[in-house]
């Protein structure tokens, strides 16, 4: 039932499989080597950065670069800002996207399908078109240079997650909610006590993607956060480079980069299944 092995099934398969493995292995080098180079640079003393030919294994290994990188700029503060946003966004996503997706998935109302098409279409709006007015809106509200512009929109739904959740909610059999209705359960009750508990895996995907989105976000903090004390990790890392003027301390910059990259990599390593699942779901044929 699944399509596999386009290239044929015979004895030649062994050779072709070996060839495929070889190509993939070779291709994996440019994928992974940069990370290793990042780590290698992070652990070098400054004088070893500019050595020619470049060395891969630093000696001595300067673990204190990580500490120095963290104190060069107030990274713990940036971390706290980023986490605040992340938690705010995740909570907002869990509330708004599930409610909206439930409405689209399990209720009927006039214009539902048209509204859903509009939902999908909004994902294709270039962000620059809405950026200036949204910025002006938050400016008028006095929210610029606070974390609010980065958190509040999450409480109004995100089309991608609404789409994801709606697909999942539709797959829950109607009989279950019908039975609950007969027992006198309210719509909200069905949502809370039946649909949500069944949605663990999709909610996990949404939480992971939301976190990743906040952690990696550069543009929106750039627009809305001016003062250093409000900045996120992404902005902090960018500022790091601008500080030096002429001679960037690449080893510290790479050390800071490693620290910024580690949590996402760890997240990915632990919850790989959810990442891949989320990406696959985003590629659903429409």
């Amino acid at each position, binding site marked *: 039932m699944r*399509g596999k092995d386009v290239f044929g099934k015979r004895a030649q398969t062994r050779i072709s499989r070996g060839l495929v493995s070889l190509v993939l292995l070779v291709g994996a080098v440019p*994928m992974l080597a940069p990370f290793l180079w990042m780590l290698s640079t992070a652990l070098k003393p400054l004088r070893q950065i500019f050595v020619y030919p470049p060395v891969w294994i630093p000696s001595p290994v300067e673990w204190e670069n990580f500490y120095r990188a963290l104190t060069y700029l107030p990274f713990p503060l940036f971390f706290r800002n980023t986490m605040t946003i992340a938690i705010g966004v995740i909570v907002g996503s869990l509330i708004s996207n599930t409610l909206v997706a439930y*409405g689209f998935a399990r209720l009927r109302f006039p214009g539902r399908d048209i509204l859903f098409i509009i939902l999908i279409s909004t994902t294709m709006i*270039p962000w620059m*078109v809405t950026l200036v*007015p949204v910025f002006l809106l938050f400016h008028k509200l006095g929210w610029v240079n606070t974390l609010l512009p980065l958190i509040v929109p999450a409480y109004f739904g995100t089309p991608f997650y609404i789409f994801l959740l709606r697909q999942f909610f539709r797959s829950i059999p109607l009989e279950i909610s019908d039975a609950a209705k007969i027992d006198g359960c309210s719509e909200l009750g069905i949502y809370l006590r039946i649909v949500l508990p069944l949605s663990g895996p999709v909610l996990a995907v949404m939480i992971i993607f939301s976190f990743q989105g906040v952690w990696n976000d550069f543009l929106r903090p750039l627009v809305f956060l001016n003062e250093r004390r409000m900045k996120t990790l992404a902005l902090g890392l960018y500022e790091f*480079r601008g500080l030096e003027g002429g001679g960037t301390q690449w080893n510290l910059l790479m050390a800071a980069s490693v620290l910024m990259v580690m949590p996402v990599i760890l997240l990915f390593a632990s919850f790989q299944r959810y990442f891949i699942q989320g*990406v696959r779901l985003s*590629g659903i044929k429409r």
Partner: protein
Amino acid sequence: MAESKVAVGRAVKARRVSMATGEAIRGYAFISPWIIGLIAFSLGPILASLYLSFTRYTILRPPVFIGHRNYVKLFTDDPLFYTSLYNTAYYTFLAVPLRIAVGFLLALLLNTKIRGMTWFRSMYYLPSVVPVVATSMLWLWIFAPQIGLADFILAKLHLPSPGWLQSETWSKPTLILVGTWGVGRSMVIYLAGLQDVPQVLYEAAQIDGAGPWKRFTHVTIPMMSPTIFFNLVIGIINTFQVFTSAYIMTEGGPINSTLFYNLYAYRHAFSYLHMGYACALSWILFIIVLTLTILIFRSATAWVYYETQ
């Protein structure tokens, strides 16, 4: 007798209507957060942006209506408008086909029954997972003149360095290269699509005597065309809006060779505070992206194959 039946019929119908109305009300209630957000963060801003594009506005003073002067300036008095448009088109129409080809090819390779498929998939996906800021810094370091890893490798191969990000000619290709490093995300989508191709089609083709290449062109490609189509649309829309990598790595340089459209509009908005002009620029972008999308959708009937056909 007849009257009571009619009465019962009416009562049932009335009850059904009120149930449907109740459900509709609940439906709207559930989606209300999104509706509010739609107006506040999407539709409202789009209209506001349109209005502002006909004004001169620097935040410090109220907007001044100036008619279509912004648009006239765009088209007749702003060489950087055309430069940024050219840069963006160059980048998009090279990067998107490249990414589709590489992603698709990798997915094909990964779809074979080799051991460690999960490992490979993770390895290729990893670069697209990590923050762009961090990887931009990394690639800046790798492409650093002379001391960077890239130049070192070229020197070892006795090849001249193209100057990478410092070169007017090679800055865009370098950014395209860096962008392709993150091909893992689309690769995973292609992989999912490949695995959804029904095995029976391959078997039927084989029975009909089709060799591997014929099976590829007559089964794989048609069945994958919706996925490719989807990736093409999303790819073009997103790539046309390239911003972060240029902002961080090159700041539009050298000599505006990587001044992409969004970067240019962003500068007008937040560096020069030409909000009105920036809105005009962004509306032009909107129209361009819309036109491209419509064109691709129109062309879809020619080459996208859906199972229902």
